């Protein structure tokens, strides 16, 4: 079964990218619906198989690592593959109704989306450092293309700023890869992890990779490119970028840290990354509170939520194994719940802007009365972002709280609490604007039901994650065994 599932997972997005490039928007949408079904089924099948039999290595082209490239199909990777399938399907279905098919350039949305999807799957599964670099670049260029789609001046500026930041970040990572290859003579992550104990890697490797990937993940103060890019892009694109794309570079950083951190890390690097993350939580939330445009609020909220991810480094360095595991679980759950909630939020924000015809927060007055459904999806997603029970965000923060206590690093608890408080601040500002009464007649355009249902489904999943949080946590802890028979 696996012998077909893994090629299927790699092949379908790339094949759809080719097909969708050759047709117009409407036919591309039709193809994409088929592709979504295939991709979701394959991701589910892969997840179920790994949950049942444990992880494995897959040798691409039949060449075993270190000569060839191996895929590491473990519980964490397939969980993210499934998450990608859910979020990207939602964004694609939303885009199918949201984007204007009469504009010729919109037909390029589908091939770019499918290349992005393929790149994401590639990064989650990659077991090879250089392959991760190529996957990362595929994601970056597809994302830049999606931001620039249409080629209006503000979008071009955001895309260029994004592209330059992404390029510099990738080079930092590639430099680290060059140093790794010089030290070990191999690029296979599992091979390096085995060798790291006897041949400690140079500390500079992790520092360069951390700087480069932090720039791509938009860690404060390297976040300058994110708000414009995520705020200006079309809503389904913003959802993809905030929910998945920034997570890819963080995932690589985390993988490197877990394989090499013990030897090449230091308390300064770990606490420094944590401190920048904490600063990002505070500054991002505050900036979100001060924005006048709705999507910019959501974009700055991403800067804040990305900050939490970097608590992984201090909470997993120089602490007991159980504490480190707790931190990893908390971060993984935070990543998943933020992906679902933020995608829901961007799509809901897109619907709200479509309805009121104005991107300003102040234009939302009266929305609560006439568009309660759109506002409710937004609010439900916000519950998870704030970390209120019973959402997935709550369970994630709870685990991080426990990890901070167990590690004796109580200062992160303050960050977690302050972050939740500040996120409540910017969310309630939006609610306050939308609960203002305007009069008894309904001035709003009502988006079609299909547009409204999608963010709602995502938000419900973000909340529901709180109830089934054990499921992904047990699957990601499964051991990785041999290859495909």
């Amino acid at each position, binding site marked *: 079964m696996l*012998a*077909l599932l*893994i*090629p*299927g997972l*790699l*092949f379908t997005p*790339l*094949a759809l*990218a*080719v097909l969708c*490039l*050759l047709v117009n928007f409407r036919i591309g949408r039709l193809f994409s619906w088929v592709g979504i079904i295939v991709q979701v089924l394959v991701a589910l099948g892969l997840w179920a198989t790994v949950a049942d039999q444990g992880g494995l290595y*897959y*040798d*691409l*082209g*039949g*060449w075993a690592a*270190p*000569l*060839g*490239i191996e895929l590491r199909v473990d519980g964490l990777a397939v969980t993210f593959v499934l998450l990608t399938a859910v979020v990207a399907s939602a964004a694609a279905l939303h885009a199918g109704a949201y984007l204007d098919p009469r504009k*010729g*350039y919109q037909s*390029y949305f589908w*091939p*770019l989306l499918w*290349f992005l999807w*393929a*790149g994401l799957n*590639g990064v989650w599964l990659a077991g090879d450092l*250089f*392959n991760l670099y*190529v*996957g990362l*670049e*595929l994601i970056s*260029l*597809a994302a*830049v*293309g999606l931001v*620039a*789609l*249409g*080629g209006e001046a503000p979008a071009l500026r955001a895309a260029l700023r994004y592209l330059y930041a992404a390029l510099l970040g990738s080079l930092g990572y590639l*430099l680290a890869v060059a*140093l790794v290859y*010089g*030290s*070990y*003579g*191999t690029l296979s992550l599992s*091979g390096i992890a085995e*060798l790291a104990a*006897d041949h400690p890697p*140079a500390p*500079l*490797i992790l520092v360069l990779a951390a700087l480069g990937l932090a720039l791509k993940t938009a860690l404060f103060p390297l976040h300058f490119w994110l708000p414009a890019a995520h705020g200006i892009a079309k809503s389904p694109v913003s959802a993809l970028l905030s929910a998945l794309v920034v997570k890819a570079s963080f995932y690589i950083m985390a993988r490197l840290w877990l394989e090499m951190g013990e030897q090449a890390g230091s308390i300064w690097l770990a606490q420094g990354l944590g401190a920048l993350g904490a600063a990002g939580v505070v500054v991002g939330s505050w900036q979100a509170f001060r924005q006048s445009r709705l999507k910019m609020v959501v974009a700055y909220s991403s800067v804040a939520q990305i900050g939490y991810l970097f608590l992984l480094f201090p909470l997993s360095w120089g602490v007991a194994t159980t504490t480190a595991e707790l931190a990893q679980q908390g971060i993984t759950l935070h990543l998943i719940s933020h992906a679902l909630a933020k995608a829901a939020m961007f799509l809901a924000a897109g619907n709200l802007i479509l309805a009121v015809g104005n991107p300003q927060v102040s234009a939302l007055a009266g929305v609560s009365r006439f568009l309660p459904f759109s506002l409710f999806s937004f609010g439900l997603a916000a519950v998870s972002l704030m970390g209120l029970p019973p959402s997935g965000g709550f369970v994630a923060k709870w685990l991080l709280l426990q990890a901070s206590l167990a590690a004796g690093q109580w200062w992160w608890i303050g960050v977690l609490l302050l972050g939740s408080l500040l996120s409540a601040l910017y969310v309630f500002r939006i609610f306050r604007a939308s609960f203002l009464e305007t009069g008894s007649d309904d001035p709003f355009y009502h988006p079609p039901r299909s547009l409204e249902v999608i963010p709602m489904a995502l938000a419900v999943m973000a909340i529901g994650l709180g109830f089934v949080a054990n499921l992904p946590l047990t699957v990601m802890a499964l051991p990785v065994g041999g290859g*495909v028979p």
Partner: protein
Amino acid sequence: MKLLLVLIAAVVLTVVLGQTAWQILAQPTPVDLRELVAEAMPDSGVAHPITAVLLNFRSYDTLLEIGVLVVAGMAGLSMRAVAPLEAPAMRTSDTLLQALLRWFVPFLLVLSAYLLWAGSDRSGGAFQAGAVLGATGVLLRLGGVPLDFLRPGLMLRLGLVLGFAVFLLVAVMGAIRGDMFLAYPQEWAGLLIVVIEAALTLSIAMVLVGLFAVAPAQATERDWPSREGKR
């Protein structure tokens, strides 16, 4: 202030990187891929180790890399559909250039074909051949040859993805036969690599010429007042 900070950062990077690189250079690596490559060469279907690594051992990298190239070409084309920005002024009708083109173009085409063919046993290959072919296209374009297939139609998009599509089909054939994704049947490996490389050459050149044709022409000072008025 910024100048000082950046200079300090750059000097620190250079010094620390140099120091680390020097240390790494002094130590032997625990794994030596040269031996593994040499052992696997007879099964690779080609005689040149770099080509074997690119199109067989690490073919997944190359597949994704062509994806990156197609994405760049696509993103460029998506700009073009909004407003065709081609300036006829870019094309010269210089007689000397025209005369030179008559000599150069056939020569460059032959050179490109040679590079493609040479890739199997010495330096060369799809990328070098594609770059030369792309440069030929740019030269033709500059020389005033219209190259109609560069209009944003189906032909251009087909050319753009042809190499990628061929590569992807070969990749999935491996899985359909019950082998790994990207695995070639051993006796066909050499032929399949040549087919992939030929298609890639064409697509790489297409992406390069396409992007060249898409980039808006130089706007001169004189253009500004009139364009402001139009908006």
